[in-house]
């Protein structure tokens, strides 16, 4: 298993500002995943973060908008930059122990942009 601490749990932000979300895992993992869940919707993968290399972004997501850091095997951050109301979502980090095996999730960050 894996225990993931994600913070902040929620935030209300002003348009045009940026928010950095932190994700700490209790053990070393190779890959960490960042998901977005828009209101009433399913999860959409934003990017996969590998330690020591650039994150791999999914179609529709770009590094300038969602920069990701992965300084070591237990920690990652996702920044939502230059926010607009359309960025209001739940952001979730997750990890697994092997490709396509079960994911362990953080408790999520509920972001509201005014």
């Amino acid at each position: 298993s894996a225990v993931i601490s994600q913070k902040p749990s929620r935030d209300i932000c002003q348009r045009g500002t940026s928010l950095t979300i932190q994700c700490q895992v209790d053990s070393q993992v190779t890959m960490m995943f960042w998901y977005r869940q828009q209101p009433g919707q399913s999860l959409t993968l934003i990017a996969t973060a590998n330690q020591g290399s650039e994150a791999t972004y999914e179609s529709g997501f770009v590094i300038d908008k969602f920069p990701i850091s992965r300084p070591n095997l237990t920690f990652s951050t996702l920044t939502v930059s230059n926010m607009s109301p359309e960025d209001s979502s739940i952001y979730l980090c997750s990890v697994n122990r092997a490709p396509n095996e079960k994911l362990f999730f953080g408790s999520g960050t509920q972001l509201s942009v005014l």
Partner: protein
Amino acid sequence: SQQGEEDPQALSIQEGENATMNCSYKTSINNLQWYRQNSGRGLVHLILIRSNEREKHSGRLRVTLDTSKKSSSLLITASRAADTASYFCATGGEFQGAQKLVFGQGTRLTINP
């Protein structure tokens, strides 16, 4: 686009009844997983069924997989109020050149006392 389509989108039943949710997908998969999400927070993994398996049980959960029909079902027996949550299927396989999990739209389950 999302790989998984789930139905129903919402389901409301009485406590003690069984709840069945279905998931259909489009491409070949390595496995299919079911997750629960309470109140829009982090997801909890429930069960994983591999492409060469047809049925799997875990407590009150029963999952079936029909790869010929590209569909799966999740049955929760003897439902409880605490089962109220959203349930998502996720298909594991190679999509767009990479191994990844793709989530379905989810079923919102409400258990009425």
